[in-house]
């Protein structure tokens, strides 16, 4: 589904991303972990053609994302507040996204019902602009916006951050559900090793822009991840 080929990006001469080869097959739920500055967001931005690669390319369904925007038709994403239109109310934002994706009003309302749990009473019918919502609720709005179009590929940057514990748990089951039912290809980054190990089939660790570990998830994965990220204590 998504193929990364000798991808490199540098800022001010410092390489922030340098990936030889990476392939994410259709239907895989792909987790990305790494400390701050490891290049997770950079990688996602490159996949979404938001920044220019210094070398190499990203292919989505065998088409380079920076050459042709076919991928936009089947890709949903939410990286940060740059994906929110802060002067809209949530419903307006959702129907904007539905409109440009050709999702009808009825379909959208079915979606609202499906997500009633996830939203709680805090998002819909609040008559409030997105900019006046809390960070956590903004995140929920963005996450929902990313899946309205019923995409084949879903790209989320730290979806669990800022969410309250119940919402985190709901989001986990939601993502697993989506992946099972819709056979969705998911790219998710997170700092929460527990969550990521739970929702991903495969986990890749980035460090200083380089791919250092590529694991298929098993019972031991969490332990392995924790071992990797354990700070070295001075003796």
């Amino acid at each position, binding site marked *: 589904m998504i193929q990364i080929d000798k991808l490199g990006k540098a800022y001010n001469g410092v390489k922030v991303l340098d990936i030889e080869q990476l392939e994410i097959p259709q239907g895989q739920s792909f987790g990305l972990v790494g400390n701050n500055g490891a290049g997770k967001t950079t990688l996602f931005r490159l996949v*979404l*053609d*938001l*920044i*220019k690669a210094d070398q190499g390319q990203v292919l989505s369904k065998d088409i380079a994302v920076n050459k042709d*925007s076919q991928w*936009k*038709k089947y*890709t949903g*994403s939410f*990286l*940060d*507040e*740059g*994906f*929110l*239109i*802060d*002067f*809209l*109310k949530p419903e*307006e934002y959702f129907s*904007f*996204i539905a*409109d*440009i*994706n050709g999702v009808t009003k009825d379909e959208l309302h079915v979606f609202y019902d499906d997500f009633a749990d996830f939203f709680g009473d805090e998002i819909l019918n609040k*008559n*409030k*602009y997105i*900019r*006046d919502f809390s960070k956590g609720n903004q995140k929920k709005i963005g996450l929902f916006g990313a899946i309205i*179009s019923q995409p084949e590929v879903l790209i989320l940057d730290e979806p669990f951050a800022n969410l309250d514990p119940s919402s985190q748990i709901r989001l986990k089951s939601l993502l697993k559900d989506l992946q099972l039912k819709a056979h969705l290809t998911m790219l998710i980054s997170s700092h929460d090793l527990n969550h990521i190990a739970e929702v991903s089939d495969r986990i890749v660790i980035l460090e200083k822009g380089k791919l250092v570990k590529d694991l298929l998830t098993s019972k031991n994965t969490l332990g392995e991840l924790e071992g990797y990220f354990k700070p070295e204590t001075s003796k």
Partner: protein
Amino acid sequence: MKNFTLLSHQWKAATRSVAASKSVGIKIFMGFIFLILFLELLGGGFYLGSELAENSKDPVADLSRYVLYFFLAILVIRYMLQKLPTFMVTPYLNLPIKKNKLVNFILTKPLFNGLNILPLSFALAISTGLHEHLDAYTFWMIVAIVIIGDLFVNYISIYIKRVQIKHEYIFYIFLASVAGFLLLDQFKIVNFQGISSNVFMKVIQNPLWLLAGISIFAIAYYLNFQLLYKHFSLEDFGKGDSNQRSSLENLTYLDRFGKIGTFALLELKMCVRNKRTRTMLFMAPLFLLYGLFFYTKPSYLEMNGFLIFIGLFISGGFMMSFGLYFFAWESGHFDLMLTANNTYKDYIKAKYFLMLSTSTIIFLLSTFYVYFGIEILIINSVCFLFNIGVNSLLLLYFATNNNKHMDLSKGSMFNYQGVGGQHFVLMIPLLVLPILIHLPFRAFGQANIGFALIGALGILGLLFREKLLDLITRRFISRRYLMSEGFRNK
């Protein structure tokens, strides 16, 4: 010690902000303009003073009749130009600093505003022109009156502005009171000159009255202090205006234009719901009224080149102030626009149609200028064609050059955040090109052919708009990384 720390933080905030490091060009430009205006002010004051010295029997008494107008002018200018003194207060709230101290700190900031030297300089320039008629005592009294009066005006304008954050209607009340003052004065219903003279001659004769001036200044300061102290948590003054039903929600007829309509609706909402764009929207009618300033004077009606300029401004002024930042306005959600399922061309086309429709509406409203002659209507029509055919596309093309993040939550009057020096340069071809086209024809007495040509260019632009929009789209695509990177950089 604490005051010093606060000051040093302020200094750092000012010098380390992104805006400070980026816009050297615009600073030089603004500095230049400021210098010229300052010199003109001094020259004007001196001229006024020396004229009075020559022609008036009692120059001080004559002068005193206009002091009230002088302060009113300062109030209006301060109100428009001066930024509200603010201070990132949240990080200090939990520190052991007294709230009084912080409030006073914020309130002393306007004392160090560069604008403060202007009223006094003007007064000094007048005094210099008048020096033969002034004794030392009167001179110092004038200085004292100007300083104290200006302090009062300064704090009153700040007070109005701060209240206005929460209650926008205050702006209109202010506007209406100034207009009311001018009307009452114009039709001599109230003799403001007499009042002014009474008050200020009294002060000059008896310096004890200065104390009254000082106390009204103290009251103004106290009002400010109260207001800030009460609303210190900034919660009251940060947000505002959200929880209201808006009429735009049900604006569904744009739906039938498909994605372009969706984008256009988004753009409209953006205009209405953000402070900066909203101020611009309120200023749009002013462009329409622009003609009134000039058409009423017969001497201007002879100058074709000038009329073209006005014609361009009437139907294009709004478009020009808005269009050059078409993409920058969306810097807050530009990433979404880039990844959303749409073609770039639809996205750009929506902006194009928005310019087209606003310009058309303003033009249609402006047809009443036919009152000043059919020629005016013809000129305005060709200018309108040029605006929608050529200028709109040029604006879109140039808009791809802007890659500075724009903060829409700040008001727009003289707000240059995110504006580059190139703005002013880019306006030149938009306004000057048609005049240049027209010039040779006028020189040979064929003004009408010149007008026809301007209109024809506009029509050509309309006919070939698809091709030209393709060109702009290509340009947009090649600039998209630079733009999105710049917009992300707040």
